[in-house]
């Protein structure tokens, strides 16, 4: 959806003073924010106010789908932030996404209360079922939303910080780093599969009832979650944009291109990398937290290496190092997947795989590169 409207002219002046100054020269970003704003206003109206039979009505199915795409978009943003700008290819960002998701999932589980299958007031069903007597220590606090919200950023952030600190200070770089992140998410996946972990094993966390008191299955809640996702992507974009246009952003790109030179220029490369990695992980965590209530389940398959690779693929396809390209890539690929799996269920991987190959071959700078080419053509 963001892509569809990219070619239309965006409002050049936004009514917001500092924001428009900040976005000056950033056409892609302006368009992205405009699209988000429009979607944020129109979608709820078309879903709630327009009657179901009308051609303009947007079904709750679509709203949920869009919300899910947006969380993917936020994940893609976080990947682009470190990959596109710092050259750190993380093949394990799905881990941060999933951890954020699990933090949210744990909150949602605790909200179930006595409404579980076994009706236990405190323990989630799977614990009753495994004969657990007490709630494991790490489940404490998750009955409070603020605590869960904190954990959504703190857990991925801390993991990224520790992992990054270990790796960057030893100068683990390039593919070595990438494969280690893959090992990280793979190890987490195996660990989370274990029922002893206390997080639901293979089935993960599911059967959620409500969030902050609002029933998850109500249309209003879904719209609320959708709006939260719109907001998260918008803010996420602004934060990323602020980072990459700051001097820190320049240092980071310098690290990407000539790491040794940066070091001899007097910057502590590892500090920059760890910082950026942790920030990126937190964004991914937020994305995960928004994802879970919208799809209704979180389980270890989110930690599988392929999921993380998919996130990288979104970014590469949209256009690396452009931020809004990442958003576009995520939405486009997810939409393509939704479309193809319904439309050609027997052979859709041919189309999706083909799409990836074609884009790499003919659009070296991703979809964004293609749009840029169009934009330049009339001038030259």
């Amino acid at each position: 959806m963001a892509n569809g409207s990219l070619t239309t002219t965006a409002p050049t002046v936004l009514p917001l003073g500092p924001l428009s100054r900040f976005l000056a020269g950033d056409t892609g970003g302006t368009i992205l924010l405009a699209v988000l704003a429009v979607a944020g206003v129109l979608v709820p109206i078309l879903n709630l106010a327009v009657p179901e039979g009308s051609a303009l009505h947007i079904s709750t199915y679509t709203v949920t789908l869009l919300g899910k795409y947006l969380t993917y978009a936020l994940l893609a943003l976080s990947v682009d932030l470190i990959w596109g700008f710092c050259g750190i290819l993380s093949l394990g960002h799905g881990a941060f996404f999933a951890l954020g998701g699990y933090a949210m999932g744990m909150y949602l589980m605790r909200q179930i209360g006595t409404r579980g299958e076994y009706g236990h007031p405190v323990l989630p069903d799977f614990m009753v079922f495994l004969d657990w007597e007490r709630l494991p220590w790490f489940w404490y606090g998750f009955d409070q939303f603020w605590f869960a919200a904190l954990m959504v950023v703190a857990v991925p952030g801390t993991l990224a910080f520790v992992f990054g600190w270990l790796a960057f200070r030893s100068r683990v770089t390039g593919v070595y780093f990438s494969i280690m992140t893959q090992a990280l998410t793979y190890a987490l996946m195996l660990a989370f599969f274990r029922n002893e972990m206390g997080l639901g094993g293979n089935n993960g966390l599911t059967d959620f009832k409500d969030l902050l008191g609002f029933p998850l299955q109500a249309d209003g809640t879904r719209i609320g979650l959708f709006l939260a996702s719109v907001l998260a992507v918008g803010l996420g974009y602004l934060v990323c944009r602020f980072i990459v246009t700051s001097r820190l952003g320049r240092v980071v790109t310098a690290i990407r291109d000539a790491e040794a030179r940066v070091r001899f220029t007097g910057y502590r490369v590892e500090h920059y990398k760890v910082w950026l990695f942790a920030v990126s992980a937190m964004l991914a965590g937020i994305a995960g937290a928004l994802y879970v209530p919208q799809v209704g389940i979180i389980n270890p398959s989110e930690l599988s290496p392929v999921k993380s690779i998919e996130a990288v693929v979104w970014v590469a396809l949209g256009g690396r190092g452009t931020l809004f390209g990442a958003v576009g890539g995520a939405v486009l690929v997810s939409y393509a997947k939704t479309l193809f799996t319904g439309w050609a269920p027997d052979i859709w991987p041919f189309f999706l795989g083909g799409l990836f190959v074609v884009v790499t071959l003919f659009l070296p700078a991703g979809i964004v590169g293609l749009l840029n080419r169009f934009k330049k053509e009339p001038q030259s």
Partner: protein
Amino acid sequence: EKDPIKVGVLHSLSGTMAISETTLKDTMLMLIEEQNEQGGLLGRKLKPVVVDPASDWPLFAEKARELLAKKKVDVIFGSWTSVSRKSVLPVVEELNGLMFYPVQYEGEESSENIFYTGAAPNQQSVPAVDYLMNEVGVERWVLEGTDYVFPRTTNKILKQYLVDHGVAEADIRINYTPFGHSDWQSEVSRIKEFGSQGKKTAVVSTINGDANVPFYKELANQDVSAEDIPVIAMSVGEQELSGIDTEPLVGHMAAWNYFMSVPTKRNIQFIRQWHDHIGDKGRVTNDPMEAHYLGFNMWVKAVQQAGTTDVDAVKDAIIGVSVPNLTGGIATMMPNHHITKPVLIGEIQPDGQFSVVWETPGTVAGDAWSDYLPGSKDLIADWRNPLSCGNYNVETGECSGQNVE
């Protein structure tokens, strides 16, 4: 022309589960085609709506929603893994859909909108253990499983069951391996060791999917034959065997509610029909296919009885509906949304088929809540009025879980 009745088929056609689920999609297409040839249902044609949830659990939820909300299907046949069912469950409950789930599973669930046509633990593993204990004289037990919910539950139930029947804890070995585990050298060697203590030993295997082939290959290579230590599997059927060289596995067993080799007229006809449909005489049939066959026929009957495809009407009508099994006997939909099934134990033959060595005298009704688990022994499910509850606690007299507000 009246609008066709839409039947959603929600089985993975790509990804890790495609290997099992693709067949079920084809089965559904075959059943629908046959029904249409017989004039459809309520004078309307049936139209399959196939989507691919790609072995991706959240995608299952999304696709279920797509089927119900967008494609407006009247019923869904789908899912294989428990987690995919769990992922779909809230969606079908929210949108009040109907889903038939065809695979043997761990139980501990009964949803108003789901019909479980595969075996619950009491229809598969418990009788299997009975057989081994009474007929084969097994005294030592290895409960070997993949680390996920179905094996965990099954093994818990079995352990309780064995202990209740006087087996010492030291004579039970429980082990879990990860999904897709492919290096079985050490585990097989340990099973060998465990089984060499003089008491008759058997392995009850809840090993899932792809991990089975390397497991059996390793058994064969380490010369563990079925006479020494028989393996009885809960997830290995004809289809899984069709991917293995079965020569070395002869004599190992499986417990199911259906075997392709059972020579009833109905079954032979079904096999022929399947071969015609798929265009390959080498293809096998298996238990989940029968489950879909039963589920589909029950649904058809219920719709005919109700005279409509309306979900609530069908839901009420289907309880008590009976259809014949492929292997003889009658399957009936119970109030807890599980069905009655015969339990068969088969030994693997060199041709990849099973020969039935034992079966329950009659059919067994599926038990949604196991009697051998402390958390669920007091729970029952009954979706008829006035109880209409999936987890009614007979002790407290309460309907716990989702229906309490």
